[in-house]
């Protein structure tokens, strides 16, 4: 597992933040309070035995200044195979993603979308920016299935970041998507930019794949995450574990109730 950053992002993001602060290059305040993380997960439509989109929202709450992350692990029930279906039938290499963004990758490598919010702490205040997120199937990495999280902020910073993640086994009943978050520097002697929220929808309804049929290129919606016919007791368990550069850790767990899934049948 490794993290990567596109050639442009950190520098542009840093410069943009500097401009936004009108050259108020003050250093951040010192001590950081204990961070906390919240998680909310929805399955849509969430019908048992049927394909579903998985909507994951992670919010990192910290007193200012927000501390930068070093790792982020999304725990999901092993019963939901994020790559067992047709999601990510093709792979996009890091170089392809860096060069052309998600549009430069095969359509059949798209697995999800969402948004990410980052904050840059300064003594005079905190700049917050939200960027679009794309989840792309990457090539195998050190024997593990790789997902690339690509964040693009078109306004006003025009910055791009790509985070590599791998699927790993975890203690039952989980498996995990483990991201390594690279440092995102802002200005010299200021704290790194911190990721404070992540919203991911895997297998969104608008996802379109393409295949050749009778000589024609035909679009279809891939069959992605399929719910089992039976809900586990207590619901489908999810969790998030966050590690911060300063060494602190935070985690949250949540269960998506089975009752909600049954009612939609």
């Amino acid at each position, binding site marked *: 597992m490794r993290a990567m950053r596109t050639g442009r992002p950190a520098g542009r993001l840093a410069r943009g933040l500097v401009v936004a602060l009108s050259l108020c290059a003050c250093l951040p305040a010192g001590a950081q309070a204990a961070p906390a993380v919240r998680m909310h997960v929805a399955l849509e439509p969430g019908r048992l035995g049927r394909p579903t989109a998985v909507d994951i929202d992670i919010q990192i709450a910290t007193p200012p200044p927000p501390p930068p992350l070093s790792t982020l692990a999304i725990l999901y029930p*092993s019963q*939901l195979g994020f*790559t067992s279906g047709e999601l990510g039938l093709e792979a996009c290499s890091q170089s392809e993603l860096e060069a052309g963004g998600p549009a430069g990758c095969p359509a059949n490598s798209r697995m999800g979308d969402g948004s990410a919010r980052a904050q840059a702490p300064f003594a005079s205040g905190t700049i917050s920016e939200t960027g679009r997120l794309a989840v792309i199937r990457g090539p195998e990495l050190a024997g593990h*299935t790789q997902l690339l999280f690509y964040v693009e902020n078109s306004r006003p910073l025009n910055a791009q970041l790509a985070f590599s993640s791998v*699927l790993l086994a975890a203690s039952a009943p989980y498996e995990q998507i483990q991201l390594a978050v690279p440092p995102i520097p802002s200005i010299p002697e200021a704290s790194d930019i911190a990721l404070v929220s992540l919203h991911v929808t895997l297998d969104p309804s608008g996802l379109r794949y393409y295949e050749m049929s009778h000589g024609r290129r035909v679009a279809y919606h891939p069959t992605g995450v399929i719910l089992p016919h*039976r809900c586990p007791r207590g619901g489908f368990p999810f969790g998030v574990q966050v590690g911060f550069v300063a060494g602190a850790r935070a985690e949250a767990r949540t269960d998506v109730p089975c009752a909600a899934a049954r009612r939609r049948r």
Partner: protein
Amino acid sequence: MLATVGAMLTIGATAHAAGVLDGKATARLHLVQVEGSELNEEGPVSGVLTGTARGELHLGAIFIASFTIHTRSGSITGRGTAIPHGTGRYQSFAGSFTTTGGSGRYAHISGRPGLYGVLDRRTDSVVIQTTGRLTY
């Protein structure tokens, strides 16, 4: 994905008088049912062991398979783990499986042969091969 798919499981092993199966086995299974990330599959077994196979294949960060092969002489039950490799429609995997039980002629079967296969992620059909030595 829910469509039924043809499957093949081939057992290419050699039976010895001493009760040893030593060789390569290949099988093709078709999808019966999807249970989340678990595929229930079945299909014919051909080769030295002729019969049918039925099993579950959990597709996660690690593939976990458990299956039973039924032959006229008895059944063989095993459980295996394999690491998936590559991307694309056809995903290969490699690992090993351990026999966990048997009946009839294979009541005392034991061994830990290699487990290899290819999964068609579009149709959920899977071809499984085993190589190695089993004693019974």
